[in-house]
């Protein structure tokens, strides 16, 4: 039997890398345009979720292993907190990025970059974690039309 979702699979296979790329654009262009770590993390998670919706949760778990989630969400918070501790150790206040470079505004750039990267890791991991947690319990998509007739 031919796959009834062949068109969906081909189109999303083309789109998923572009969505992930757009997430990184939003992440690293956040200083100049709208966006930042939070939005980028959600978009990155959306690309994984789209893969899960089209190709199934088992294939998604090999592409984005669940072990990455615990590492990712912890690493993000540690990166954010670690940036604060590092600025603390270098003689500034907690999360005062100006001490990272001789030029205070360059230090601010580095600090914002590190902090946003931490937000990206945590947000993307947690969104995928919630999707995995609920998605793994699915009995498969029921036929909505039949369910409506029953009710």
């Amino acid at each position, binding site marked *: 039997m031919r796959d009834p979702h062949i068109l969906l699979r081909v189109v999303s296979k083309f789109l998923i890398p572009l969505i992930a790329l757009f997430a990184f654009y939003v992440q690293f262009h956040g200083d100049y345009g709208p966006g930042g*770590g939070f939005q980028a993390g959600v*978009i990155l998670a959306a690309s994984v979720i789209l893969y899960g919706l089209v190709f199934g949760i088992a294939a998604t778990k090999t592409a984005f292993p669940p072990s990455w989630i615990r590492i990712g969400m912890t690493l993000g918070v540690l990166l954010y907190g670690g940036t604060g501790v590092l600025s603390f150790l270098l003689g500034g206040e907690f999360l005062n990025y100006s001490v990272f470079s001789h030029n205070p505004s360059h230090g601010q*750039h580095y600090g914002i970059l590190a902090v946003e990267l931490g937000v990206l890791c945590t947000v993307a991991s947690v969104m995928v974690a919630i999707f995995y947690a609920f*998605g793994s319990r699915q009995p498969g998509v029921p036929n909505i039309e039949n369910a*409506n007739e029953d009710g």
Partner: protein
Amino acid sequence: MVFASTSHALPVYILDYGLLAILVIVAFAIIRVRSLFAIVMLQGVYSLVCAAWFVSLDAVDVAFTEAAVGAGVSTVLMLSAMLLADCRSAPVPISRQIGPLVIVIIAGMAMLYAVGDMPAYGSATSPANSYVGMDYLERTAKEIHIPNVVTAVLASYRGYDTFGETVVIFAAGLGVLLLLGLNGNAGRWEACPNGQCVSDSDSVASIEQSGSLASSREGETKPSKLKTKGADDA
């Protein structure tokens, strides 16, 4: 992005009121429709129209978040939650609708009363444009040298707040992992959505398409599979 547009022409009014009218229509549709699938989809539509309206109000960063979170991820999450529950919502008797209606009317009237105290749209003397907001706008150009003031405020001036937000998201993820696990309660669960009973043995069979649970548990023949399974279960 930050400076409000000063010329408010007729097309802008039409856009604003048109989008608000669509929001009201979608909200009524969400109340009236009984199919939960349609409700989830309409909530996605609501978020998307909200995002378009935020763009028209020059709040691009907020619009971005609304489109990504509200219309994108939360629609999928609501959908996966709906599949575990029922497909249709049960009708609520009129007698139980009166209390919520009274509360909504009182809250709505309180908001309408408060509208009179709000500053005009884009007003130079509004609280957002007069105190600390202007300070951030002036200092960002001198101190941080990045064009997007929103990012500067979020990540640098208000770094503590964003740290707190990140920890909140981390805590939410931790709660989900503790309660449900990444594999649906670590593989030991049973659910009866829509009268169709599923238990962990079904899900394991579908997840591990080759090889049953027993073979992957006792057999050392597939070390890579065993490793993934262990990571899932933990």
